[in-house]
């Protein structure tokens, strides 16, 4: 069984607790930034540009200028889409020398890239509301292909992609002095020992 490195696990745990506190405190403000980005993204691609996303503090209300003014506006909690930042913080904390300039710079870069994925995730969530959850309006405006595409994309993000993206960002941006799959294999103690003994022989 693989040996559990308790120091690494504890570093991750400490960062995780701090990150949850930061994330919970900053979320209302961050939701506004994500909603603003997603609104720009949606308006860039929709004709006519009618979508407005309003962050209310606890969720984001979806409005369209062509909706019946009397109908209720759907809302969605953005925190369900953004809490993977906590995982990102915990992963960068388990890197060697977590407070080095390089690690912190790369964590900030990863956070920026994650912000872009949050914008895309919110836009996808809004599209899945449009295609699936607005009853007759959805059926009139969108076909089967659009329903399957946006529904699957939204579900896959919530189910696994939101975690896989974080893992991918961390894997790609972690400082290069960490062992890579090949470096682990070629630079291990066993190789050095074998190399020395072969030279002696």
């Amino acid at each position: 069984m693989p040996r559990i490195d308790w120091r690494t696990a504890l570093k991750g745990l400490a960062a995780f607790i701090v990150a949850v506190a930061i994330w919970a405190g900053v979320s209302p403000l961050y939701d506004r930034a994500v909603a603003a980005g997603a609104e720009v993204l949606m308006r860039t691609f929709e004709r006519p540009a009618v979508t407005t996303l309003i962050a209310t503090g606890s969720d984001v209300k979806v409005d369209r200028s062509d909706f019946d003014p009397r109908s209720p506006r759907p809302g969605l909690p953005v925190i369900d889409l953004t809490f993977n930042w906590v995982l990102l913080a915990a992963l960068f904390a388990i890197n060697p020398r977590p407070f080095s300039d390089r690690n912190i710079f790369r964590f900030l870069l990863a956070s920026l890239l994650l912000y872009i994925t949050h914008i895309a995730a919110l836009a996808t969530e809004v599209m899945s509301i449009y295609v699936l959850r607005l009853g007759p309006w959805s059926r009139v405006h969108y076909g089967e292909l659009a329903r399957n595409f946006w529904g699957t994309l939204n579900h896959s993000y919530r189910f696994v992609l939101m975690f896989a993206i974080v893992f991918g960002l961390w894997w790609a941006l972690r400082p290069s002095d960490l062992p890579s799959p090949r470096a682990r294999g070629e630079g291990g103690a066993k190789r050095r020992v074998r190399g020395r003994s072969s030279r002696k022989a």
Partner: protein
Amino acid sequence: MKRDQKLFLIKFFAALIVMYLIVAWNPVNDHVIVPATKGIAVAAGTILKAIGQDVTVSGTTIGSSRFAVNINNGCNGIEAMLILLAAIGSFPATWRARLIGLAIGAVIVQFINEIRIVSLYLIGAYKPSLFQVFHTAVWQVVVILAAIIFFLQWSARVAPNRLANGS
């Protein structure tokens, strides 16, 4: 990023997408995922009864007069197991090492997941104001983080062996 790291990431995401599509396919969901989730609910219900909670399990729902939790995809540990499977499957190692890693990793993920379900029921029953944050942010991240830390430990262990075995 080195070439082998890029290759690992490409394989990881490709494997994850394929596995997601398989798991999301209705026949697989209905005949594999839902029965497995029912088993997870039964195990959590048994633990809750053992610690004095008067709960009943119906399908994937654990309930009592105080509170009820329905275990769906995202709360059954399948997402963490898919990530673990994609990562271990994409990492250069022998098939034996991969199978051992997957078996041990699955046990660890499901063990932590049972703790998650039991604790979420208790939080919902006795401290409902904390349920949302624990359900959304705390436990989902803990389960995925456990899977990733296990993968890192496993990969650090198997890579030298792979070279030593010449595979």
